[in-house]
C-alpha cells in the first residue's frame, strides 16, 4: 500500500512543483500583495461626520417638509416575496382600482414586477416617503388591450418566473406552467381580449415582458404609478380602512409531477 501510493504521488509532486514555478514567474510581481479582509457594518457605534451632516441638513429639511406627512396606517408590515406576496397584492390592487378611475372603465387586470417593489410598507403610520421608497421610479400608467396569446404569455411568465403580482385573477401553476387561469372570476378564454393596467416600463417590454410591447395601447395616462398607490392609500384612509393585504391564493402552486 505504502509504496504504491508513493509511486502515484511522485509524478503529481513534480507536476505541482512545475506549475507552482510557472505561476511564480508569471504572477510573482502582483501576487506578492497579500489581501486581508474586514466587513465593516455602518452602525450606531459611529457618530456622524460633522461636515457630511452639515451638508445633508438643508436637503433633509426640505425632504421632511414634503415627505414626512402620514397618508395612511398599515395594519402590518407588507413585504414582497416570490410567487405571491402581501405587498405585491396590495400594489397590484392599488394600480387596478385607481387606473380604473383614470380610464373611467373597469379594467380586467393589473400587474407589477417584484423587482419594481423597492421597499416594504412598514407597520403603523405610513408616510409619503415610504411610498417613494416602495416605488421610486417615475413610471407612468398605460392601459393595454391584450389578445388571448398575449394574456397567456403574461400568465406563462408569472408561472415561470414567479416574480410578479397580479390583481383580479387566479392562476393555477404546475411545473412552472399556468394550467388554469381565471380572470375576474371567469375562466380565461383564448378568443377574448383583456384590458391591463401597467407601468410604461413594463408596457414597453421591460422586466422580461417583451410580449407587452406588441399589445394594443388603449391609453397612456400622465399619472405616475407611485401616485396611484398614494391615492389608493389616501382613499383607504378617508374611508377609515387600514392598509393590509394577504396571500390569498392568486397564484396556486400544484405539486410538480
Amino acid at each position, binding site marked *: 500500500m505504502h509504496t504504491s501510493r508513493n509511486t502515484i504521488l511522485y509524478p*503529481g*509532486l513534480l507536476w*505541482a*512543483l512545475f*506549475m*507552482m514555478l510557472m*505561476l*511564480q514567474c508569471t*504572477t*510573482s*510581481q*502582483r*501576487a*506578492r*500583495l*497579500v*489581501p*486581508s*479582509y*474586514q*466587513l*465593516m*457594518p*455602518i*452602525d450606531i457605534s*459611529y*457618530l*456622524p*461626520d460633522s*461636515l*457630511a*451632516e452639515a*451638508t*445633508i441638513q438643508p*436637503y*433633509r429639511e*426640505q*425632504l421632511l417638509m*414634503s*415627505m414626512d406627512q402620514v397618508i395612511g396606517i398599515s395594519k402590518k*408590515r407588507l413585504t414582497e416575496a416570490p410567487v405571491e406576496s402581501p405587498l405585491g397584492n396590495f400594489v397590484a390592487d392599488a394600480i387596478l382600482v385607481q387606473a380604473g378611475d383614470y380610464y373611467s372603465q373597469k379594467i380586467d387586470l393589473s400587474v407589477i414586477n417584484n423587482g419594481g417593489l*423597492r*421597499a*416594504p410598507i*412598514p407597520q*403603523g403610520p405610513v408616510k*409619503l*416617503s415610504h411610498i*417613494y*421608497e416602495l416605488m*421610486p*421610479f*417615475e413610471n407612468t400608467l398605460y392601459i393595454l388591450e391584450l389578445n388571448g396569446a398575449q394574456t397567456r404569455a403574461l400568465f406563462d411568465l408569472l408561472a415561470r418566473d414567479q416574480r410578479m403580482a397580479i390583481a383580479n385573477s387566479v392562476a393555477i401553476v404546475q411545473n412552472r406552467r399556468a394550467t388554469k387561469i381565471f380572470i375576474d372570476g371567469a375562466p380565461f378564454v383564448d378568443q377574448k381580449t383583456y384590458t391591463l393596467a401597467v407601468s*410604461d416600463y413594463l408596457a*414597453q*417590454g*421591460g*422586466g*422580461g415582458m*417583451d410580449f407587452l410591447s406588441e399589445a394594443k395601447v388603449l391609453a397612456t395616462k400622465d399619472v405616475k404609478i407611485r401616485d396611484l398607490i398614494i391615492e389608493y392609500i389616501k382613499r383607504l384612509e378617508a374611508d377609515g380602512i387600514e392598509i393590509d393585504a394577504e396571500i390569498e391564493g392568486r397564484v396556486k402552486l400544484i405539486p410538480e409531477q
Partner: protein
Amino acid sequence: MKRRSFIKQSVLGSIAASLTGTGWAATSESSVLTILHTNDMHSRVDPFPMDGGPYQGLGGMARRAEVIRQIRSQADQVLLLDAGDVFQGTPYFNLFGGEIELKLMSQMGYDAVTLGNHEFDNGIAGLEAQLPHANFPFIISNYDFSQTSLNNKFAPYKVFDKGQIKIGVFGLGIDLNGLVAEPLYGNVKYIDPVPVAREMVQQLRSLQCQLVVCLSHLGYRYQNGRISDQKLAEQVSGIDLIIGGHTHTFLNEPQLVDSPEGHATLINQVGFAGINVGRIDYRRGSNSDQLTPASKTVKVTN
C-alpha cells in the same frame, strides 16, 4: 506532507489558504494599500429608520464618512471605490436628482465609481446634469457613449499611484436593454464585457499595474447563463479583484475564483444601501509570511 508544503510556499496557495481556510486577518499595521468599497447605495443618505425592519438603524452616509475618515487617519494608502447604483431608492433622489449623494461621495474622497443601471433613471440628461457634483471619475469600459451627449465624459480605466503600488481600475456595466426604459438610456451601446475585460487587463498590465481591479455592476451570479462576476472571473484571467454590485449580495468575505491560467480572482460585494463598507488590506508578502495562515478577525453583521 511534502505536497502540502509546496502548495503553502506557492504564492497562489498561500492566498488560497488565507482566504478559503479559517478566514481573514485585518492587518492594517503592515498594509501598503487599503481598498474600501461600497455598492448599490441607492440614495440611502440617512440610516434606515427604526421601524422594525431588518436593516433598521444601519447605514447613513454621514456615518460612513466618519468610518472612512477614521480609516484614513490610520491607513497609509486608501483607495475608495463604488460599484454603481448610487442613484434611486429614497426621496433624496426624487427631489434632488443625485446631487447630495455625489456631493457627499466627493467629500469622502471616492477615487472611482462605475455606472449602475439606476444611474440612468433620470435619463442621460439627468445623469449629465449631476456630473458637476462629483469630483471623482466614473469609470466604464463597456458602454459606448459616442452617439450621446455624454461622449468622452467617462474613462474606460484609470491608473492610481498609491505609494509603492500602481493600481489599474476598470469598470463594467450591465446590459441596459430590458432593465432601463429605452428612452432613458437612448443611444448608449452595451458591449460584451468579456472581451472588453480581457483588453483592459492587457492594457493595465502593460502600464505596469501590480493590481488590476474591476468595478462591476454585472451582478454576483445568476442561475441562468447571464454574465456575472462569477462568470467573468472564470472566463477572464488577470483580474485581481472584482468589486461587484447590482444583485445586492451580502458576502461575509470575498470569494476566491480560479481564473483561466490559474490566476486567482477575488470577488466581493457588501449588500446595498451603504449598510456595510468592505475593507481589503494588501500587505507585501514574503515567503515566510505566506506560510502563516491568516487569523480570523472578520466582523459580521447581526
